[in-house]
């Protein structure tokens, strides 16, 4: 009897919380008022704990964790980011690579499958490739355009994300090379991305969505190679030619009208001589900022930023109880959420956002920090020295790397103290990792 009462109390405590954050959901064709949340669909996660489904049938103390977060609420649902796919035509084949579909709140990608078609938009024939980030479609007809998509699956085989379509044109087999002495070595178990003979040039096309009229910057191996403006619909495209064949890390980020930058989206690409690689479906994460650096507890905090027009924007606020807030961007991509800070505890917090539109979901962007205190402090328009910007020029690039490298494993003084980004009184690989994560080129 006592156990039953305890269970009832535990369930009541668990499912009382979500109603505080549940929101009405509406569309042009339906409206859900005061949603009632059941146990199923509620996902509880922490770094070392995952609970799927109901917890009502367990006895006390069977579920424990050193750190535990319970994400309940109408907008707390699992999701996964949309992979960005790249395709390069090869000899009667196409090389495909894609970014990882990163899951959250219960989702994790267990495998991928490749859809292939000779018609844009499909229907596609799918083949499973396992939990890898590259594959080769072989036995293709030369000079025929093939279209590919990649699907991410969970451990039950369910599709949880689908990339946009990318195309590639396989090339015909080259004429036999003239006889040469020596051996090029067996293929064996070697390989990786290595191109055995480095001749000729390659080209690459990048396309996706950012924010309307925003600046999109493309980096090649950590150096800026192009900056373009997105159009009114937030779409952008960049073409690079005369590139060497080989492995590249390309990265893109966006900058909105207020000078706020998105997180950087990176993808490794292996370029082939004489071939064009198309990278499509790039979805740059939203920018984010707040109107106050510190907000008096109970006052409103305005969280805003920019994304693609008419996007559904999910904002997470890092707190004792993680908050998931929903907003929608307008026709110029601007979004705004007014947060009542009464439920937030005093201290430091951060917020980050991601966007979804047209079936694509971006990754989370960079986080903005704010504090909840006893008085409000307005955020300054621009913060000059960001993390890793050791010379305070508004960029994190080779100069900052050079300054940090000077202090590497040296006693710290002067600017060396600023180079110690994680404040452990030494400059080591961890500080370089933080610098690399905030790189702007």
């Amino acid at each position, binding site marked *: 009897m006592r156990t039953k009462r305890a269970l009832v109390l535990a369930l009541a405590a668990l499912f009382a919380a979500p109603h505080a954050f549940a929101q009405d959901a509406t569309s042009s064709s339906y409206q859900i008022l005061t949603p009632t949340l059941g146990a199923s669909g509620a996902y509880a996660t922490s770094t070392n704990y995952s609970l799927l489904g109901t917890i009502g049938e367990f006895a006390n103390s069977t579920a424990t964790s050193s750190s535990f977060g319970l994400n309940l609420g109408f907008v707390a649902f699992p999701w996964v980011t949309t992979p960005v796919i790249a395709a390069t035509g090869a000899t009667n084949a196409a090389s495909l690579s894609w970014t990882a579909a990163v899951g959250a709140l219960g989702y994790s990608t267990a495998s991928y499958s490749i859809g292939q078609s000779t018609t844009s938009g499909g229907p596609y024939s799918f083949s499973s490739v396992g939990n890898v980030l590259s594959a080769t479609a072989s036995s293709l007809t030369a000079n025929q355009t093939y279209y590919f998509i990649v699907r991410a699956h969970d451990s039950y085989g369910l599709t949880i994300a689908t990339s946009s379509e990318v195309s590639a044109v396989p090339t015909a087999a080259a004429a036999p090379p003239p006889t040469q002495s020596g051996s*090029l070595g067996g293929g064996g178990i070697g390989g990786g991305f290595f191109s055995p003979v480095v001749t000729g040039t390659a080209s690459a096309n990048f396309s996706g969505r950012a924010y309307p009229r925003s600046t999109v910057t493309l980096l090649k191996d950590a150096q800026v190679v192009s900056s373009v403006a997105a159009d009114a619909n937030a779409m952008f495209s960049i073409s690079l030619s005369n590139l060497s064949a080989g492995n590249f890390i390309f990265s893109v980020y966006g900058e909105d009208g207020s000078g706020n930058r998105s997180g*950087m989206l*990176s993808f490794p690409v292996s370029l082939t001589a004489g071939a064009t690689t198309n990278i499509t479906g790039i979805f740059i994460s939203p920018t984010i900022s707040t109107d106050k650096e510190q907000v008096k507890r109970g006052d409103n905090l305005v969280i805003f930023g920019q994304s693609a027009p008419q996007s559904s924007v999910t904002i997470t606020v890092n707190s004792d109880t993680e908050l998931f807030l929903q907003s929608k961007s307008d026709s110029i991509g601007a979004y705004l959420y007014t947060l009542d800070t009464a439920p937030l505890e005093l201290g430091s917090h951060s917020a980050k956002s991601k966007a979804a539109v047209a079936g694509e979901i971006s990754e989370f962007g960079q986080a903005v920090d704010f504090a909840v205190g006893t008085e409000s402090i307005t955020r300054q328009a621009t913060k000059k020295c960001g993390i890793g910007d050791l010379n305070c020029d508004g960029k994190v690039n080779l100069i900052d790397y050079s300054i940090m490298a000077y202090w590497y494993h040296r006693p710290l003084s002067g600017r060396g103290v600023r180079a110690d980004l994680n404040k452990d009184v030494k400059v080591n690989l961890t500080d370089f990792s933080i610098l*690399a994560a905030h790189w702007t080129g």
Partner: protein
Amino acid sequence: MRNFLLTSFFVLTMPLSASAATFTLSATPQDVGAGDLVRVDVLIDSITPVNAFSGIVTYGASLAPISATDGNSIVPLWLTPPAISSAPRIPFEGIVPGGFSGMRGQIFTILFRARAAGKASIAVSEGEVLRNDGKGTPEIVISNPLTFTIAKEARGGYAEPADTTPPEPFSVTMGNDASETAGSLYLVFATTDKGSGVDHYAVAESRVPVFLQRFLPLSFATTESPYVMRDQHRTSAVYIEAVDRAGNVQRAVFPPQYILSWPEVTVLLLILIAVALLFVVVIRRRYSSLP
């Protein structure tokens, strides 16, 4: 109820998506004989985006290292570039700005010569990989060692392909506020090479216009980034060359910022003033000598 509990137990105990970065070593060719060259690629697999790698490659006495190169590497910036030494270990430490996630990302390549028949073994020890999460969170590291058998007879071995492509084009940026260089102006630069790897950088400073350089050729000296400019007045063009192991060259130029330095401007002004004064004196004398 029992079924439910069993199902729940299964769900709860289901392995979570294990996150780990794996160092893999890959040999080309696989069939190696005594005296053959063998190429070993140090590769990284990571689903989670990571941006910093370090470790030490160790190898047995049956292998003699010829070179360690970052040709076609995903790592553009090295704190400790891979290099061979007298010790049978090759430490490496580098970062990938923006991060890397994927399979078989090439970190660097070692070229060995198989000394004698027997077992060859190579491994990555003390491996460290950090996540691209802005905190430098350590990722779990798995290192897969490589072992293969060296046959008595030579089998042909690995033939290094010809590299006719220069290093990637790069830009040169000036730093002007570093206490690390005692306030001196300096240049920073870096590039990658998709073939044999960057061997070294060389620098030359000159005020000679390009069309006259055939008569007064540039004199290059080996350098590295950051380079403290010899001409702190910025009146010289600074030519930086990246040279790969095959001798291919990619040149970048940091153009002169001023035509004359301030001491030169001062001297020129003094000369102009002196000439003007002389002119005035001459004119006055000429007029005063008139009747």
